[in-house]
Structure formats: C-alpha cells, structure tokens
C-alpha cells in the first residue's frame, strides 16, 4: 500500500474530506513521511486512526458496515483454508499446498488489515462467527462437509468462495465512492481475490477435475452446479453500461468471450444469503 498515494486521494477526491483535512493537513503531512518508516503491520492501525481523525469522528456508518461485511467474508475464507491446511496430506503436491498456504495467508492478512482499519477508525470489528464449513447452517452435515479433506471438493468450494468474494467486493465499490483511501484498499484486496480465483481454477484444470478456464464463462459454475449456481447467476451478462459486447463495433466477440471480459457484482444481500449456510447461527 502506498500511503502517500492514499493520503493524496483522501485530500483530493472527496471535497468534504478535503475541507476537514484542511485544518489537519499538517498532521497528514507528517504522517506521509512517517508512513514509509512504519512497519507494515502497524500501517492499518495508523491508517484507521488517521482516517478517523480526518473526519473528526468515526467515518459514516455505511463505510464501517462495508468493511465489517468484507471482514465477515475474509474470516470465512481464512477459516476455510486454515481448516484445510490442518490436513496437509490432502494436498497432492508441495505446489498445491504452497499455493493454498499463500492464499490462506492473504486472507488472514485481509482479516487483520480490516480489523485494524475498522478499530482505528473508531468502529468495532465484528467478532469471528462460529462457522459451519460444511455449509449446513450449524448442522455440521451440509453439502461441503468433506471439503476440508477431500481435495477435489475442497478446490470446488475454494473456487466458489474466491469467485464470490470478487463479486462481493465489486458490489461494494459504489458504496465506497468518495472514500479515497478506503476504496483503494478495497480494490487492492478485490484484485488479490481475483488472482486467487484464477489460480484455483488452474489447479482444478491441471488436476483434470474440470475443463475450466481462469475466467468465468457464462454463468457456469463448472463443478458444483446447482449447489452454487446462485453464486454464478448474473455472470452471463453481455450488456455493459448499455453497450452490447457481443460483436461490438463489428469486431468478432463471442458470447463466451463477452461474458468472460467483465466480472459481475453481487449485492450485500445476495452474498449474505449465499454464505448463510456457513454460519453456525
């Protein structure tokens, strides 16, 4: 994260923030130099508290709600990979175990970043819920109950979680418009989730579990089908901002390529509904 960049954004993007900042410019200026010397782990805390100070109070509840919603998803992803990595024998190769270790680490880092940012901004991070990773809503007997030791199922669920995470962050971008630093941080998480999704899809392809590409074609879940169809519905869109992408401007663009070219968002309500089976109430 480039702190100076973020601070510049805060100063210039949102006129309201800009006015608030005017009296605090000196503080920010000091921080801009200071930030480069900070240990990275300390950055989100300082970032959150400065964000807080820039408002003179906690940021609007809507921004904190978005961050807590993101935190819930990151808790879930981190918890899922943590449970799977407790069964190292499940992984067929060092490469596959290393990849999941990397992805799991990123999800933990996202948890820590969001918690610190929320606290620092004067909000209260939600506690980690009790998860039912079987997707059984607390019964422990849901459709994914073997996913933390059955490699094939594990990858299918991981793919769905990552693709859904990408959609969830995308759906919140508009709600973070004008927040500068917060929006940039969310975008920087969002593209990491997309990198994860791409790699997990390749892992499935390389293991011959599915004929699947790194990108989403149509609304095809490729694997778990009806169990996760709702996670992919809407991805078949070919109309963007009122413009049809198929054969756009006379260029030969197929339906498949048109849908792959743009990932689609989900609302908070849609995502909450999709992941509720993982929450043990």
């Amino acid at each position, binding site marked *: 994260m480039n702190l100076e960049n973020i601070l510049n954004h805060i100063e210039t*993007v949102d006129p309201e923030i800009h006015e608030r900042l005017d009296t605090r410019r000196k503080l920010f200026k000091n921080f801009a130099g200071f930030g480069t010397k900070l240990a990275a782990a300390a950055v989100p805390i300082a970032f959150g508290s400065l964000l807080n100070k820039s408002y003179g109070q906690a940021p609007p509840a809507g921004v904190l709600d978005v961050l807590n919603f993101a935190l819930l998803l990151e808790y879930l992803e981190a918890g899922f990979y943590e449970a799977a990595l407790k069964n190292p024998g499940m992984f067929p190769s060092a490469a596959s175990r290393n990849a999941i270790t990397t992805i799991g680490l990123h999800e933990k880092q996202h948890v820590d970043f969001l918690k610190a940012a929320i606290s620092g901004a004067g909000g209260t991070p939600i506690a980690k819920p009790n998860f039912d990773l079987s997707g059984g809503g607390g019964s422990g007997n849901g459709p994914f109950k073997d996913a933390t030791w059955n490699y094939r199922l594990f990858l299918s669920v991981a793919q769905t979680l990552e693709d859904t995470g990408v959609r969830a962050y*995308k759906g919140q971008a*508009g709600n973070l418009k004008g927040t500068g630093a917060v929006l940039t941080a969310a975008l920087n998480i969002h593209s990491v989730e997309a*990198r994860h999704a791409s790699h997990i899809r390749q892992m499935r392809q390389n293991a011959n579990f599915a004929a699947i*590409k*790194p990108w989403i074609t149509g609304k095809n879940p490729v694997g778990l089908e009806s169990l996760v169809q709702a996670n992919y519905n809407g991805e078949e869109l070919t109309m963007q*901002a009122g413009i049809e992408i198929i054969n*756009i401007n006379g260029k030969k663009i197929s339906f498949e*390529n048109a849908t792959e070219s743009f990932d689609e968002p989900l609302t908070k309500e849609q995502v909450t509904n999709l992941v509720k089976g993982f929450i043990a109430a």
Partner: protein
Amino acid sequence: MSNKNTPGTSMLAGEPGTLNASRRKFLAIATAGIAVAGLSGCQKIWEHIPKPGDDDDDWKPVDLGSGDVGILNYAYALEQLEAAFYIRVIDKAYSGIKDSEKMMLTDIRQHEIAHREFFKKALGKDAIKELSFDFSSVDFSSRASVLGTAKAFEDLGVSAYNGAGSLISDTGYLLIAGKIVSVEARHAAYIRDLISYGSFADSTVVDNNGLDTSRKPADVLAIAGKYIKNKITASNLPS
C-alpha cells in the same frame, strides 16, 4: 519515444507522398512555431519534425482529457496497448506454444479487444484516436519475451485500474472499472503461473497486508510509454 522526435537526417529517403506530407507538416508547424515563439521557438520546431514512415499524426500529443472522460480515455489507451500486443502474439505465435496456451492467450486477446471497443463506444466523440505502438523490444518468437511482456502489461493494468478507481466520479463507470480489473487480475495470475507456477500473487505485487498494487496514471504512463509511439498528455486527469 525520444527517437521519433529527433530530426531525421534522411527525410529525402521517404516515399514521395510521405515526404510531401512531412514537408507540408513541417512548414505548417514551422510557421506556427515562429509566429508564436519567434526565434526561441526553434527547439520546439525541431522536436515536432515527423520522421518519414511515422504514421501520419503520431507526433501530435494525444490529450486524454479531464474528469471521467479523461479516466476512460486513459483506460482506453491501456486497453489499446494490450489488445495490439495480444493481436501480434496470436498472429505469429512463439515457437513451441502449447495448444492450451494458445487457447487462453486467444481468449485474453478477445477480452482486451472487447475492453478496447467498449471504451471506444462508451466515449464516442470524446474518444482519443487509435494509438501507434512500438513493440521493437519484444521478441515475438520467444516465449520468455512474450510472457514477460504480458506479465508486465497485466500487472500494470491491475495497478492502473486499482489506482484509478478513486479518481472516477460516476458510480456506473467505477463499477465498470471493477468489472474489468478483476478480469485483468485473472489474466495476470494466469500469465504469471505460465512463467513460474505458483507466482500468481507473489510478494512482487501483493504486500504483507495482502493488498495488490495501485499506481497513479502518471506512473502507469511512464512505464507504458516505452511501448506507445504517441506522446500522451495526462496532465488534465483528475488527481
């Protein structure tokens, strides 16, 4: 890019048509330059002399514009670059390319063309011109050269969209940027894995808060400029 602004020593070597066009252009600029700046404008005049063989208008600075139009033109420029690159990649694939690689790289070409054409259509009359590119530093017959360049372009694209998000005013266009950036990130991860399996999100692009890279337009264009023949003016973009 600096080369093409250097006065050519062999203007007479150009084809007759080109020469005439170039000479006309030179005279027009020279006149304008002198009128505006007098003798002190000489340096400027020399800088603008087109080389024979340049596309007609390559020497004219391309202004991206301001506000959301500027950001969309910025994205349009980057998508033009990516599309032009992958068109070359597929036109004459590097030796030893696997079928699966060619399929995926063809997909990526199609995605970048779709992005390019989307911006062109969305911008309409505000769209910048079609840019000219210089891929002389790429060896299209070499897998390492092609994939190395692809990786640079995709990572750059991700950082460009991540950095541009907060500069966009219109919520609809912010969402469009979000829809595209995750596809670029999927590309980036795939290309990186082709080069070195498992490097899809390594520490060269993801920091230890788990955050991807974002770059300001000026920083992105400084990197992309190596491949773009036109001079791009980004000074009116929101910052």
